[in-house]
């Protein structure tokens, strides 16, 4: 409010909004067509990092043969990505809010991703595994923070519009990135092998360099997106809620109970999905007598399902609202899938498909909820924090579930995951009641949200009209001027209370 007043000219009409030039739909930030362009850019912004993140998995045998490392060292490539992110995600959101702003933040993180991938590939070229690990570290610094930036962009462009759909699309793009990578990198490797003539670390290096092209693509997207965002800000006078405010680390203390519950759901849910998929292959081979190829297929079905379903669910949640109920439904369905896997011999395709569907549904309903409970200027921090503790949870639970599996087997592991999911259910139930008691808008249907938003807009418009309709006498201008200086003036001349006097409240 203060800011608005500051920008307002002292004399009305002195600097009104300039006449907007007529623009075509594609270049008008107000229009859907333009937003779609922006959406595409946002999706490809993350494509590179998701593509390259799973490069090691796609080339596991090649990496292990060419670099002559065992599986434990190979897994270090993922660990080096994960560990720094526990802290960095948090700072990533922080840096976006405080230091770089969303645009430069995105560009810088994209640069990190690119440089990281190049170092990673160079490590293979020079046959230095430590360099590859270092590359993954740099890549990791950029990777997760880039995801935070991506989310923040999505919120700033699509909040109140197609936000759930956009989150869904971003998620499916991530999955497409992983899937394309899994299927393409092996082919690229064999092509490069044919070109060079031999296998070896240089073949691997060249292959990874080629994979790095996707990161360059993402970097280009970051630049274009930054340009478009600035342009939109100028044209729309879009408020940049992130700048100007000083956010302290202690802001975390001000996070509402609802937000913490959302974090809890997030951690408890994801630790019951990703570590399971990581350890799932052997489970399907041993318990269901699948061949390794079949087991690999069923293990990736969650990602394959979530790629096309995410945007559909995003759209659906946008239309219907009721986020908490969807989250609840998704968590319960996931629990059902885990119980099915643990206690029955039913065809695991049923359970895994259910898992895939509920996983996509949860992602579409859970992540956008953050935007409803956090003021806009803290969004980056909140999303960063969410991803940070998600990473922490995943890193810890990955280790824990490995230990559980080795000592107590899959049944116990599944029971453990079910317990995690039950904790998530408890959190959702509490979230539901907290929301109900405090009257939050997390569980409103979309038409209720639309009505509220319309009312708010209406209110704001009335406010503006009222302000415009005040006859700007010289006296009024002077009063306003004095009030700016901080001089004492009689209460009934204070302009922002004038509007209140029209309401029945003060009468």
């Amino acid at each position: 409010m203060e800011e608005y007043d500051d920008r307002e000219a002292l004399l009305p009409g002195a600097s009104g909004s300039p006449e907007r030039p007529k623009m075509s739909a594609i270049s008008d930030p107000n229009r859907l067509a333009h937003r779609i362009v922006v959406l595409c850019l946002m999706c490809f912004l993350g494509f590179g990092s998701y593509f390259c993140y799973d490069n090691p998995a796609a080339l596991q045998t090649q990496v292990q043969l060419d670099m002559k490392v065992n599986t434990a060292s190979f897994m270090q490539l993922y660990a080096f990505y994960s560990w720094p992110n526990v802290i960095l995600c948090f700072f990533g959101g922080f840096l976006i809010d405080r230091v770089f702003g969303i645009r430069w933040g995105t560009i810088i993180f994209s640069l990190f991703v690119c440089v990281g991938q190049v170092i990673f590939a160079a490590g293979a070229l020079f046959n230095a595994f430590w360099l590859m690990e270092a590359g993954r570290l740099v890549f990791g610094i950029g990777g997760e923070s880039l995801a935070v930036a991506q989310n923040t962009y999505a919120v700033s462009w699509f909040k109140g519009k197609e936000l759930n759909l956009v989150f869904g699309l971003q998620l499916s793009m991530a999955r497409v990135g992983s899937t394309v990578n899994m299927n393409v990198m092996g082919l690229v490797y064999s092509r490069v092998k044919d070109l060079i003539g031999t296998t070896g670390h240089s073949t691997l290096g060249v292959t990874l360099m080629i994979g790095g092209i996707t990161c360059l693509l993402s970097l280009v997207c970051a630049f274009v997106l930054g340009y478009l965002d600035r342009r939109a800000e100028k044209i729309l006078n879009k408020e940049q809620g992130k700048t100007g405010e000083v956010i302290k680390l202690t802001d975390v203390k001000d996070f509402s109970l609802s937000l913490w519950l959302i974090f809890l759901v997030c951690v408890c849910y994801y630790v019951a999905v990703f570590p399971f998929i990581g350890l799932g292959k052997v489970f399907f081979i041993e318990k269901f007598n699948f061949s390794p190829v079949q087991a690999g297929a069923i293990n990736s079905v969650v990602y394959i399902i979530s790629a096309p379903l995410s945007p559909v669910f995003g759209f659906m949640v946008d239309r219907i609202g009721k986020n908490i109920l969807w989250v609840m439904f998704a968590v319960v369905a996931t629990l059902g899938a885990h119980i099915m896997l643990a206690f029955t011999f039913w065809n695991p395709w049923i359970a895994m498909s259910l898992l895939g569907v509920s996983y996509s549904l949860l992602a579409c309903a859970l992540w956008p909820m953050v935007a409803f409970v956090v003021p806009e200027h803290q969004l980056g921090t909140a999303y960063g924090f969410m991803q940070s503790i998600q990473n922490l949870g995943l890193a810890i639970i990955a280790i824990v579930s490995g230990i559980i599996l080795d000592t107590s087997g899959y049944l116990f592991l599944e029971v453990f995951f079910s317990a995690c999911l039950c904790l998530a259910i408890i959190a959702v139930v509490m979230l539901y009641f907290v929301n109900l008691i405090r009257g939050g808008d997390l569980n409103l249907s979309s038409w209720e949200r639309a009505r509220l938003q319309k009312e708010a807009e209406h209110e704001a418009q009335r406010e503006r009209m009222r302000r415009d309709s005040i006859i700007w006498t010289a006296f009024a201008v002077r009063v306003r001027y004095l009030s700016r200086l901080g001089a004492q003036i009689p209460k009934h001349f204070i302009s922002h209370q004038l509007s209140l006097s029209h309401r029945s409240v003060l009468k």
Partner: protein
Amino acid sequence: MLSMSAGLCVAVLCALTAGLGVRGEHAEYRRRASLESVPGEDTSMNILHIRAVDNSSTIHYVWSSIGAPAVLLVYTSSPSSQLNVNWTQLTSPTPYGAITIEPASSVLYSTALLFTRIFEYQDVNNTADFSGTPEKYFYPAYDLSEFSWDDANATVNASSLTANLTGRAESHSFQNGSLTFRISAYDGPGRDKVSPRLLHNANCSKFEFLLSQVKPRGNNSRFALEMVTLEKKAGRKSMQSVRSIDDEYTPTIFEVAQLVPHTPNSSHAQGYFQWKSVAYGSTSGKREDSLPCQHYILKSLNESVEFPSVVHAFFGEDLLETYNVEAFNVSFGIADGDFYDKYNFMSWSALIGYGTPPKDSFSILVISIMGVALGLPVLLLLLGAGVVLKLKNRVYSSYEPIN
């Protein structure tokens, strides 16, 4: 906050129930078990005898390394039945009747398990398809009847009820390596500490089949063990694969295989062999060293088999006329799994027993975690609904109309 305390509750409850579970074992059925070596003339000819006695019956397990290693299982209705071995007759070309149980009338059931050959084949594509591998990839099988055996008497541990039958082939591969049957007897119910942590009771004994430091004869070698079993003509053994959802005790292994007699009109329980479908590449039985194994269908042997003398000594000359003799294989390793040469060691365990094969059930810990985990959200839902209802009522009642 509430969820944290809920988590704490879960932990406390688990600890409690786990503690209860340990103390709450049923009254245990026990037998007096003993394991001893039957002294003979030649130290390489071993006969190990396990007796497990209760008030009304005795189970005899007779292990022998004369010829192919074999174990006889004899169930008698007398608590004082004795094993008699006539060594001179046993080592003669006609050993029939050299091994007897006195009184003979007390013998209710008898069977045998023979370990005849070890196959080794080259698994070129890492498919672990033992039965589908072409003949040319097989190395000459090791015939266990040609092995020479160490003196088992020195390995008998009467208090822990264990003994080892260790032997080796006249082959380069066995220069530093050996094959061992580690035999354990049990006097009560329990579970081994090391994987596969088979559940056992007083009515069974266990053997571990150990190949250690045996050099594989090529790259990608896999092994398989051939065994022969017999059953009175009225019935025959059948192979059962019991798939369990519970792998708590043997992580990642969901299959229990058992060989049980299928005898119609049988008035009493019978002998069984039971094993989990896994072998290990180390003595510690860690999961990452597991070599899952597969078993194959029983095949009837009609032509004359070269039985080790103990089998003829106990079951008589006309063995094939009164008994169904069947052979089966167990192969070690699965597709895309590790080969033997990664460890140069392999251990596989199985139970031999009388009665109903033991069956794993959920641990109390699992049941209680599931109970608490599923119960808490429901409880919270009810509680929350109550609170909300109450709050709503209060909210409405506290707002009095302004006028």
